[in-house]
């Protein structure tokens, strides 16, 4: 009944799954779509075709950390913003700076964050980042007190449209390390 009889239909199933999913879909997710065995290589090929099919259309098929998703092309962002005027509220500087430290220095403890920012970390800040599922605990540092180690999540990368941390904007853009005296640790 739900056997997928040909390649075109297979691609349709991928498309409809991507168009209705709120979260990025991984190759494993796609495999679950089909009862019969499907090769990963076939899926990749079909996803490529799908990307081409939509190349001139309103959505683009992008790959982020946890999989593939369709998203509105950038040029429509202004229109869509008008549709949803009640945007997600901006985070405070404390939240964004804490996030930046975790993203660029991970894994870090609260102590590390406090050392860099020069102020105590408000637990509300950590809670906001964890509730957004941008940050989570990945372990404990083997020092007295065994403080928790924080890192960014795949969901953080997804939300910022990235496949990996390597795509974060480089910090060197801002601090010219050659300006530092030789004995400064970079």
């Amino acid at each position, binding site marked *: 009944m739900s056997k997928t009889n040909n390649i075109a239909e297979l691609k349709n199933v991928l498309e409809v799954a991507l*168009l209705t999913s709120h979260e990025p879909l991984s190759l494993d997710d796609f495999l679950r779509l089909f009862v019969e065995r499907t090769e990963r290589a076939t899926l990749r090929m079909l996803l490529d075709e799908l990307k081409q099919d939509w190349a001139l259309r309103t959505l683009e098929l992008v790959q982020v950390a946890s999989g593939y998703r369709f998203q509105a092309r950038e040029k429509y962002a202004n229109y869509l913003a008008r549709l949803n005027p009640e945007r997600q509220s901006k985070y405070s500087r404390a939240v964004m700076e804490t996030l*930046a430290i975790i993203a660029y220095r991970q894994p870090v403890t609260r102590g590390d964050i406090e050392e860099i*920012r020069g102020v105590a970390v408000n637990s509300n800040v950590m809670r906001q980042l964890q509730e957004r599922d941008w940050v989570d605990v990945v372990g404990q540092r083997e020092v007295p007190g065994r403080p928790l180690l924080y890192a960014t999540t795949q969901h953080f990368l997804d*939300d910022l449209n990235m496949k990996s941390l390597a795509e974060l904007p480089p910090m060197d853009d801002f601090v010219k390390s050659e300006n530092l005296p030789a004995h400064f640790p970079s």
Partner: protein
Amino acid sequence: MIETPLNAKIKGEDFTDLPKDLYIPPDALEVYLEAFEGPLDLLLYLIRKHNLDILDIPMADLTRQYMVYVEKMRAIKLELAGDYLLMSAMLIEIKSRMLLPKPAEIAEEDDPRAELVRRLMEYEAIKLIAQRLDEMPKVGDGISVASAYFQHISQVQPPEVNLEDLAEAWRNVLKRACHFQHHKVGRAELSVREHMSIILRRLKADSLLEFTQLFDVVNDGIPKLVVCFLAILELAREGLLRITQQQAFSPIYVQIAIDLNQKS
């Protein structure tokens, strides 16, 4: 951006006596101080505002300007001042170490400002990258993800339950039921209750049964037959069965006391 009193001041001036026209109402000052994320942020602000060279900070100037703020904070918002006071101590220490005469050859490597400068630069880098992250489009804010509707077919797998789960639940019930003593039931009686259900079920199907039909004399052992009999007696006692016999030695009939099918 918040307009700051520093805009109107000249580097190196004595800040301890604020001119009257620069007076900030305490509430406004609080807001203003909250704009800083901490002592490093305030220091960076002072350095940038006064075009100080971060790699060659005039410690005396910076320390004096910084102290003005800390004094105001102490007056208004004590709980905020902890980290700031620590920084004051550090600034003063650096300043005093710089006043000490030192051999020329180690001066280069042992600048007392080095650690402060490193921290300021690291913090500034984080501050800038945080701004950049903040401006990046994000899902829900600049990025809209496809989310067409679809008919959810629920393929709900019912939860697994095993005997231990059930026993645990029963144990919880018993622990809570303070009147448990009245309900104290043994294993044998459980079989009776099971047979009560079985008999009710059979009578639901055939509203009238002959008493003997309830016993499988061929297959059931004596204990089971006894249990079945006890179940019938218990059902009768609870008013769930009606047992009738026209006359002595004629067949005994068992029927359900209330016929579910005849319910209005």
